């Protein structure tokens, strides 16, 4: 059985030999042209004159395209058609594409693009959250507000309260492979687009709109990306459309690749946030009322900002039961890059808000922040184990989860073969999120207890305090933070997926689905599902490029849902074919289809054992179709985003991290010394791949909150537009001691693919423990609360140290 095996990434061998083909490695047909955008050097203004003669006359230039030359829609927005690919009259940010150069080489296109003379009458740009509020520049009219409980009454009776503000910076994706696309014209106006995108269907859709052709004339293919992280969910549209338009106009293949500076200057990043909070609580730290005001800087176009801001609200509780809460969300429109999807999709920012509240309350009470966190956790669904055993309250039932409590997923997997347990039936909700969803699968108490135990949190906290007492300059800090992350697209209809599976007569299998591979191991995990269903070795399954002509109308590979959705769709397709083969063989052997077994590369029926290939051959000869599509839609989810009520998620993924840091109180310099992580991937499909997601997610999250600082100047120019000025974590930045484990007791209570849990985004938020550990270290310097902002660069840490010393 291939499911649950720690198999290497499917392309690992290709990667280490340099033969894995990324888009820019595809041999281009002769005559292929290269494209580059001419960019605005003004953040806001009106175009009054355009002179592109010098561009046209530059060596190697074949064509120059402006908004007026476009054959169809001038729009690359994933949402509300407010994002012209080329500026049409108004300029909205510094770096906005104004015109498109088509030239004989990449360099020729880029050089020519610099020669354009576009006269822009500038206006004062709206760059900051304060400026946007002042000008009332926003999406969706006023703020979105959700409430639960009687917040004012709760505040009146709360014995204690704190309030404050935290600034949370954005984050550049820094996928190592930059944005790139290639369009190859075919006959009769057909176009084949290769795009480094997480969302081939959307690229197809936008290209069709731009050319005014039906979607059936446009085929988009994506084999792999060199990293995505959300940055290739919508940001690849412009390149795909540009290539398509230029290819249609010139009749030649066209390729576009952003150079790194252009990439960082043009594309959107993680939303930066300001979160104001007020919390009322009891002497033991139990929260009674919380109020958040979230300000999200969305940039110039709407892009995915509304669901991002929603998800920040949806994670304002993280793992804490908030009896009375009010969340107000402002989606601010600014003259900066259009902030976009980034691993966690607003969730991380929302979580930082409540973790800050916990930290602040603990400081106020002079208690260990972990104690305060524990007092406020949602109750675990079912006593210890998370997978079984009653909690004694009689309120929650676990009788639908079949596995014995004490076994980890490894043992459970051995104990039970392919059988999938029936869906969990639910008891009436006893604890609900601020948006009214019952929390029925909570395991946070147990996971935190397990982690705090193995990582010796209490002992280390004591040791650190003693060490700090003797160390005047260097100070260490430690923090444990939990993660509870909701899994599903909040836009309910996106929770669907399709697959296409062929079995050939030699027993080999061709596998295709709507998900895209960006390094996360989706293809391998899904191939493991297919191999498992047919009982064949994984080598028999061929993973093929995502292709809109094979599986249509797909959702983006996003929201951590790639495996959940596509794994189920593939399973459905495989089971369909398997059932047909079983029916056929049962018929021939006068047996029941249920007596046909698929195992170890063989099929057993009525005492006969034949190879899978032989079985496929027999089915073929008996005129049985060996090809099937599969479809899956996530059950149970329904969500009213306007009211902020419903069940947006099928389930939650949990995890916890302990970070230990040291700071230099003279310089603010800081380092992560140690990290311990326990993460719930359910019963993982591939523990090795999932572990990689956890390690990488933590480091990326830690980078976001420490060194990754985006700086715009007062003209709206992003001054950190290259890795020389924007600092992502290097190997030397990761913790010296790094203990990461998947939670052995993990099991999805919902009926997901082999009871696994999504693992793409949730681990990023484990990095919040670093920010809180830094706060802990800074707090040793005085009485005032550090109120440390993110990213906690040396400068921010120094500011916090000074704040702590002040009275």
């Amino acid at each position, binding site marked *: 059985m291939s499911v649950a095996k720690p198999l290497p990434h499917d392309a690992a061998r*290709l990667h280490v030999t340099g033969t894995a083909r990324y888009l820019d490695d595809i041999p281009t047909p002769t005559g292929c042209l290269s494209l580059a955008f001419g960019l605005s050097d003004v953040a806001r203004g009106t175009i009054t004159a355009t002179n592109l003669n010098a561009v046209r006359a530059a060596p190697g230039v074949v064509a120059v395209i402006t908004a007026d030359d476009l054959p169809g829609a001038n729009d690359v927005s994933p949402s509300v058609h407010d994002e012209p690919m080329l500026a049409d009259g108004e300029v909205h940010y510094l770096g906005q594409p104004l015109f498109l150069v088509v030239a004989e080489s990449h360099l020729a296109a880029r050089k020519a693009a610099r020669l354009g003379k576009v006269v822009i009458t500038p206006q004062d740009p709206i760059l900051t959250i304060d400026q946007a509020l002042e000008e009332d520049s926003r999406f969706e009219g006023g703020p979105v507000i959700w409430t639960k409980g009687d917040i004012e009454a709760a505040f009146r009776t709360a014995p204690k309260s704190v309030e404050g503000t935290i600034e949370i910076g954005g984050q550049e994706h820094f996928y190592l492979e930059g944005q790139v696309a290639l369009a190859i014209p075919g006959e009769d106006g057909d176009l084949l687009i290769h795009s480094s995108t997480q969302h081939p269907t959307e690229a197809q859709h936008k290209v069709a709109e731009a050319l005014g052709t039906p979607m059936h004339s446009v085929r988009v293919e994506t084999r792999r990306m060199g990293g995505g992280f959300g940055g290739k969910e919508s940001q690849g549209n412009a390149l795909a459309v540009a290539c398509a338009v230029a290819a249609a106009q010139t009749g030649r293949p066209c390729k576009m690749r952003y150079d790194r500076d252009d990439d960082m200057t043009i594309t959107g990043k993680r939303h930066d946030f300001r979160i104001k909070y007020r919390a009322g609580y009891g002497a033991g730290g139990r929260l009674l009322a919380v109020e958040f005001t979230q300000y999200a800087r969305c940039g110039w176009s709407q892009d995915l900002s509304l669901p991002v801001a929603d998800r920040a609200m949806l994670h304002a509780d993280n793992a804490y039961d908030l009896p009375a809460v009010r969340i107000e969300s402002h989606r601010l429109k600014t003259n900066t890059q259009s902030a976009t999807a980034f691993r966690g999709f607003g969730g991380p920012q929302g979580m930082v808000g409540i973790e800050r509240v916990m930290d602040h309350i603990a400081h106020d009470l002079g208690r260990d922040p972990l104690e305060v966190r524990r007092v406020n956790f949602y109750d675990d669904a079912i006593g210890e184990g998370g997978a079984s055993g009653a909690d004694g309250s009689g309120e929650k039932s676990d009788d639908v989860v079949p596995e014995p409590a004490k076994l980890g997923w490894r043992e459970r997997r051995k104990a039970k073969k392919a059988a999938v347990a029936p869906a969990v039936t639910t008891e009436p909700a006893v604890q609900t999120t601020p948006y009214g969803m019952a929390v029925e699968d909570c395991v946070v108490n147990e996971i935190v207890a397990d982690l705090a135990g193995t990582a010796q949190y209490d002992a280390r906290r004591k040791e650190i305090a003693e060490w700090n007492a003797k160390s005047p300059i260097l100070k260490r800090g430690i923090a444990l933070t939990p993660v509870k992350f909701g899994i599903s697209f909040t836009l309910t209809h996106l929770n669907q997926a399709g697959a296409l599976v062929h079995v050939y007569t030699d027993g080999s299998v061709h596998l295709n689905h709507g998900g895209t591979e960006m390094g996360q191991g989706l293809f391998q995990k899904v191939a493991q599902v297919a191999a498992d269903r047919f009982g064949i070795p994984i080598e028999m399954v061929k993973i093929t490029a995502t292709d809109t002509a094979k599986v249509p109308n797909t959702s983006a590979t996003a929201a951590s849902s790639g495996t959940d959705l596509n794994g189920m769709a593939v399973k459905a397709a495989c089971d369909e074919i398997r059932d047909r083969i079983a029916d056929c063989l049962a018929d021939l052997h006068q047996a029941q289809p249920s007596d046909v077994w698929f195992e170890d590369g063989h099929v057993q029926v009525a005492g006969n054992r034949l190879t899978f290939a032989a079985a496929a051959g027999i089915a073929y000869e008996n005129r049985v179709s060996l090809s099937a599509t599969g479809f899956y839609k996530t059950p149970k989810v329904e969500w009213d985003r306007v009211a902020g009520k419903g069940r947006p998620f099928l389930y939650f993924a949990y995890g916890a991290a302990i970070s230990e840091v040291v700071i230099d109180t003279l310089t603010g310099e800081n380092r992560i010394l140690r990290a311990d992580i326990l993460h719930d991937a359910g019963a993982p499909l591939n523990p090795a791949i999932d572990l990689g997601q956890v390690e*990488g997610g933590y480091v990326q999250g830690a980078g976001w909150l420490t060194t990754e600082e985006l700086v715009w100047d007062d003209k709206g120019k992003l001054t950190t537009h290259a*890795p020389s000025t924007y600092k992502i974590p290097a190997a030397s930045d990761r913790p010296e001691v790094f203990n990461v484990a998947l939670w052995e007791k993990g099991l999805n209570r919902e009926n997901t693919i082999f009871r696994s849990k999504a693992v793409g985004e949730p681990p990023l938020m484990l990095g919040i423990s670093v920010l809180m550990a830094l706060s802990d270290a800074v707090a040793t310097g005085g009485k005032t609360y550090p109120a440390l902002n993110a990213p906690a660069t040396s400068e921010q840490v120094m500011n916090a140290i000074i704040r702590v010393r002040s009275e």
Partner: protein
Amino acid sequence: MGRVEYWGEHGMSDLHKISVTINGEAIRASVPARLNLVDFIRTEAGLTGSHVGCEHGVCGACTIEVDGAMVRGCLMLAVQADGATVTTVEGFADSDFGPALQEAFQNNHALQCGYCTPGMLASALEYLRGVRSSATGPDRAAIRDHISGNYCRCTGYQSIVNAIAEVATSKAEGKS
């Protein structure tokens, strides 16, 4: 030989003749003075295993071996490689620690998107060649330091350090 990219504005008179040995194969070409070595390798030699991440010497994705030293292919010009012997990821299987590293990277899950892998392997090779056998096992801090000029956005580096440490251990034990 790969396709000849349009050198456009350079004109034929600006081209320089070079001969380079790449992965054991002698290549002669005429190139513009300002062509990066990594672009030359990718377009002229048709070896696309070396990747371009930042084009200004920070990310390490383009790291290749030139006359025994690891260099950034985006910071060296093709004309500077005239007469040099170059090894790229496609040739690592024939080098001393190449096969062991390739094995270890696969088995330790030291890659996700794989874009950093060729450059990371180059830096790892350099580390292994320089490291002295030690009785105390691999020096993980030294490995981390050594590869800190190679960015990986996906893995968090843990698995990469594990892979290199594994090869360092077998080197110390005299296995490779």
